[in-house]
């Protein structure tokens, strides 16, 4: 049985209550007895000591009576005339009758011994003035005076001198006090009870141990304090070297002596000590009885509670049977009824809970995704997963719970793990809800894009768990990509006019120059070298311009996933401005206020250009297409940029920390503006206020999406009829090398590279490119082999392998792609050095080929600096 069970506690309390009562009774009774016995002992001892005093007093009185008669006789006779006179005879008789009366002396007014009896020649005539008691101021009354006690030189016994004044003379009676010993001997009681007498200095003058009297022992030497003089009687307990003593004292007035009766407390209170074990035995017996009876009574009392407790245990196990406890005590009955009511309530709540659980389960299983609860650890160990997990991940919930087969952390795409971890921890730190988009690996279907929203569950201020919801957004992502493409086409459409015009100019320039040269040739008009160099320069400039336009178009038409990299946002803005200003309606004034220095951010250059172009096109439309037929076309478009630290207001609006470093870009127009309703919806996909075929309604939605993916934000302020202002914020990268400076520091490498007939295989299906590059490379002293497709390239390489030090190969070629050709060459020579070239940015195929051993990549149109840098690196 448990130590703190109700029964035990009740028994304990029962016993405590009983014991306290009995202890109280015992203590009260015992103290009563103690007081009574002590009172009796005190009384008895006082009686004894008073008896002793009475005896001593009587003895002294009896002894002094004849002396007083003698004094009277002496005074009557005036002096002893001889042995025959009455006084002398009386004195002889008195001394003979009582040997205790040792000597009688009469001193004259000069304290000289006038008479001494028994006669002593030595003493007669002696001067007694040395005895202080003799020379005390003479009292006119006839009061007796007592000397201090002393040891008689003759008997060796304690003695005292009693002075009887008689006019100018004094009679002195020397009394032997040995008889007092007989009195104290009579008072001996029991083993330790004894009486003793001390004089006024505390010296023993009577004691059962006569040696102590002989030795003139002072009671202070025995550890007994001296009594106060003239205190009639008192009893007290004193601790001495021989133990505690009860001492009663009584004052013996004539000599200033004190009579004591002393007894060992153990003997004096023997009755009390004898009674004590009986009390103790009684107490033990009562305690045992209390334990037995207490057990019996309490067992009976707690029986209904035990039954009730058993019913409660069953209920705890889920056995909700009717509580079967018979009527007992009112309180227990009430408890039983309350318990029954409680059981009913529990049952009904349990049913409700089951229903709720069922409902929640249904809801969760019907959600397009899964709800979860996981531990906030590195693996995101799952402790709860709703039914959607199977379709989302391909795994059963049991496989993922507690990381049994796979941890959630392992499902997350390797590239996204750090981002996911960082963003979740940041949100948890600020106790915020987080929203994430990342990739996971489905058990069977490969990569999937998911969207997750969640929040930390805190205990003691620490985020121990995370609860949230995850849904598959792979399809949405695909659609998003498609929308982006559509957008790009839209933008291309917008730009096409301007671009066509630009190209026309370029081609016109080239054609014109060539025509001039051709004409001069046909007409044999001689051309100076300087003149030829100028024409070639014009053509080169035109080609560079064309190449730049093509590059921008290619950028816009990319279909790759956004790749974030460190970039100078200022440079990007200048590019946008350069592209945009050529296509702008002439009715619009374009103003820029751009930050002159580098503004380094991390982002996808293409996507961000797309965003800015979108905003600029929208602004231009707001001032042209969207105006009414009768309204004046045009206005001012202003583009500004600056790096800054967020103000408190800006930070609050964006949910960021004040002072966070950001790049801010504003695109403002003086166009038609928006009412608040329109403004509220402009970031919704397919929402547009433009006329049909003027816009898809995807531009701003996509811009907003791109900006959010860059951890930035896009805001709009607008007033109907006055214009709009779009503000774009992007986080700044602070710890970066200066991107633009790095670009600018590149050397004119091509000028310095000179070959010595080393062989280079140049593979490109475009003849112009192939031939142009061949000539340039050869000018630098290299031998160039050319191939127009992959198959030819492999063939030439097989033949000329020994002489070919480097292969520059286009990726997209008919018959055999660059990748396939590379693999074949590598088979022939695992050490083959192949540089890939493509008009597209590094895509998956290029990355793959690079991973397989290609040594470099050249962006087309080929930058000669890069080309020769690669040649130098790999041939020299």
């Amino acid at each position, binding site marked *: 049985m448990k130590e703190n069970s109700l029964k035990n506690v009740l028994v304990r309390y029962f016993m405590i209550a009983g014991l306290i009562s009995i202890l109280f009774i015992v203590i009260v009774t015992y103290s009563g007895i103690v007081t009574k016995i002590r009172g009796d002992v005190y009384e008895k001892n006082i009686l004894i000591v008073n008896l002793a005093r009475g005896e001593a007093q009587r003895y002294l009185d009896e002894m002094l009576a004849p002396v007083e008669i003698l004094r009277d006789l002496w005074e009557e006779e005036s002096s002893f005339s001889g042995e025959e006179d009455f006084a002398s005879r009386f004195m002889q008789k008195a001394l003979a009758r009582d040997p205790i009366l040792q000597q009688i002396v009469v001193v004259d007014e000069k*304290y000289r011994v006038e008479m001494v009896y028994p006669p002593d*020649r*030595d003493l007669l*005539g*002696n*001067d*007694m*003035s*040395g*005895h*202080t008691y003799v020379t005390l101021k003479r009292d006119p009354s006839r009061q007796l005076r007592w000397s201090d006690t002393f*040891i008689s*030189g003759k008997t*060796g016994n304690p003695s005292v001198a009693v002075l009887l004044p008689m006019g100018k003379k004094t009679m002195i009676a020397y009394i032997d006090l040995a008889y007092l010993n007989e009195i104290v001997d009579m008072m001996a009681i029991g083993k330790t009870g004894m009486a003793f007498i001390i004089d006024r*200095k*505390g010296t023993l003058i009577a004691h059962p141990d006569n*040696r102590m009297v*002989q*030795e*003139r022992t*002072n009671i*202070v*030497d025995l550890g007994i304090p001296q009594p106060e003089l003239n205190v009639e009687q008192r009893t007290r307990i004193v601790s001495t070297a021989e133990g505690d003593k009860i001492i009663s004292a009584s004052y013996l007035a004539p000599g200033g002596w004190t009579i004591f009766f002393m007894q060992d407390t153990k003997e004096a209170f023997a009755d009390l000590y004898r009674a004590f074990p009986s009390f103790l035995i009684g107490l033990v017996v009562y305690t045992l009885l209390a334990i037995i009876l207490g057990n019996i009574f309490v067992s009976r009392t707690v029986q209904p509670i035990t039954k009730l407790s058993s019913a409660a245990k069953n209920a705890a196990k889920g056995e909700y049977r009717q509580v079967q406890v018979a009527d007992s005590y009112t309180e227990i009955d009430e408890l039983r009824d309350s318990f029954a009511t409680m059981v009913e309530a529990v049952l009904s709540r349990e049913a409700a809970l089951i229903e709720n659980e069922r409902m929640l389960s249904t809801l969760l299983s019907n959600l397009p995704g899964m709800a979860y609860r996981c531990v906030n650890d590195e693996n995101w160990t799952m402790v709860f997963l709703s039914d959607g997990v199977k379709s989302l991940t391909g795994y059963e919930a049991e496989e993922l719970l507690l990381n049994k087969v796979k941890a959630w952390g392992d499902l997350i795409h390797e590239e996204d793990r750090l981002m996911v971890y960082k963003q979740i921890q940041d949100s948890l730190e600020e106790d915020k809800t987080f929203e994430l988009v990342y990739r996971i690996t489905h058990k069977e279907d490969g990569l999937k894009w998911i969207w997750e929203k969640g929040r930390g569950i805190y205990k003691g201020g620490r985020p121990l768990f995370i609860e949230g919801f995850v849904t598959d957004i792979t399809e949405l992502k695909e659609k998003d990509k498609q929308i982006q493409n559509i957008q790009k086409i839209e933008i291309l459409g917008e730009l096409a006019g301007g671009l066509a015009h630009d190209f026309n100019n370029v081609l016109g320039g080239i054609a014109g120059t060539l025509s001039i040269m051709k004409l001069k040739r046909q007409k044999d008009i001689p051309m100076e070298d300087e003149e030829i160099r100028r024409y070639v320069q014009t053509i080169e400039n035109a080609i560079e311009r064309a190449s730049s336009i093509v590059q921008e178009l290619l950028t816009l038409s990319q279909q790759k996933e956004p790749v974030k990299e460190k970039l100078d946002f200022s440079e990007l803005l200048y590019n946008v401005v350069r592209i945009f200003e050529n296509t702008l309606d002439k009715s619009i004034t374009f103003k820029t206020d751009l930050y002159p220095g580098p503004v380094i951010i991390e982002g996808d250059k293409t996507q961000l250009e797309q965003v800015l172009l979108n905003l600029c096109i929208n602004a231009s439309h707001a001032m042209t297409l969207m105006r009414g037929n009768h309204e004046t076309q045009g206005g001012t478009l202003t583009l500004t940029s600056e790096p800054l630290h967020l103000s408190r207001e800006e930070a609050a609006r964006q949910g960021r920390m004040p002072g966070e470093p950001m790049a801010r870009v504003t695109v403002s127009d003086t166009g038609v503006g928006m009412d608040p309703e329109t403004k509220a919806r402009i970031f919704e996909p397919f929402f547009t206020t433009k006329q049909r075929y003027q816009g898809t309604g995807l531009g701003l939605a996509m811009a907003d999406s791109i900006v959010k993916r860059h951890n930035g934000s896009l805001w709009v302020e607008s007033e109907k009829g006055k214009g709009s202002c779009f503000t774009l914020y992007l986080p700044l990268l602070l710890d970066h090398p200066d991107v633009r400076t790095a670009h600018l520091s590149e050397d004119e490498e091509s000028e310095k590279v000179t070959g010595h007939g080393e062989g280079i295989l140049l593979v490109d299906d475009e003849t112009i490119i192939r031939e142009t590059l061949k000539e340039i490379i050869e000018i630098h002293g290299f031998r160039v082999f050319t191939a127009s497709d992959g198959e030819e390239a492999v063939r030439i390489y097989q033949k000329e392998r020994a002489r070919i030090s480097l292969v520059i190969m286009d990726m997209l070629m008919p018959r055999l792609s660059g990748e396939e050709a590379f693999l074949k060459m590598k088979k022939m020579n695992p050490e083959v050095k192949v540089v890939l070239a493509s008009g597209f940015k590094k895509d998956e195929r290029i990355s793959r080929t690079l991973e397989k051993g290609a040594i470099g990549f050249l962006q087309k149109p080929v930058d000669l600096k890069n080309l020769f840098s690669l040649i130098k690196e790999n041939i020299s």
Partner: protein
Amino acid sequence: MGKRFQCLWFITLLLLAAACQKQPVKIGFIGCITGKGSDLGLSAKNGILLARDYLNARKGINGREIELIIRDNAMDPDKTVEEVKSLSSQGVAAIIGPLTSTAAMAAVQEAEKRKILLMSPSATTDALTGVDDWFFRIQPPNSYETRNIAAYIMEEIKPKKIAAFIDLSNSSYTLNWYESFKKDMSFFREVTLIPMKFDSRDEVSYFSMVRGLEIENPDCVVLIVNGLDAALICQQMEKMKMDLPVISCIWAKTKEFIYHAGTSGEGVIFFQHYDEDNSEPSYLTFKELYRERYHSNPDYAAHSAFEALMVIHQALSLDPDEKRLRETIVRQKVFQGLQGTISFSPQGDPLYDASPEKKLVIVKNGTFVTIGALKSERKQP
């Protein structure tokens, strides 16, 4: 289980503590404390009891209490030897006593045999001076006193004939005193010494004794007797109108003398080595405590007994080994007394300065009054 163990542990600790309690240091005392002639012994006993309580109240000897075992030898040499044996067998560290020279002479041999230190407050016989034995003492030997008394007599009285009462009940002291005095007086050839011997333990007629004195007709009287006998002799002399200068040995300088001599004691001269009017704080404290406890002034016996226990206390505090007590005293040599320091020779005799401040005491108006140095040494006005 735990509680039971704690209880057992507690009880064990208590028992250990009780076992470790320091045993008391036992010190014996032998003196005549009963009967006639007990005045010296009773004073010494009072002094030593006061010293015991005083020192025990100050942590005793290194925390050990002093336990006194007091024995009465009734001035009997044989009993004294028996008490030395008995106290030695009880394991006392030292014995304070005996008080009289006769008893001391009897005890010395037994003490030597048992290697037990005797520290006498008052035995002054010269027979034990300079002897390498186990007898140590507080009072200077007789020769110190007799030399000064002889000098006083020759300076102040210049007698031709000196009568000396000698009590044979303490012959070791009195005869030694007399011999020493006689030796000192032998420098003065013209002086005749008349020894008048008696035994106070017998029936004595002072009248007859003084009668004999009258016949001898001396120029002055020297008393080599106890206080009571000295008083009674003075009384007889006064009654016979023998107005002679009386000089007494220190033995008689007790309150008994004052009580019994009355005016006949006036003018009696004593010589003592200590100063009753000393103002050292330790002496004043002692005096105060004594008066408070015994309602009278301490005499030289009480004073010396107190100092005897002080010396033993200091020596055992320095080295608790009781068997090395004698060695410790000899090695330490100098100890604190009530009126300054007490030094011992290696033979256990107190060392006094060659020209100490000598203390002559005269009885005046029923009390002892210090009159200072000898006339030759007193400062001239």
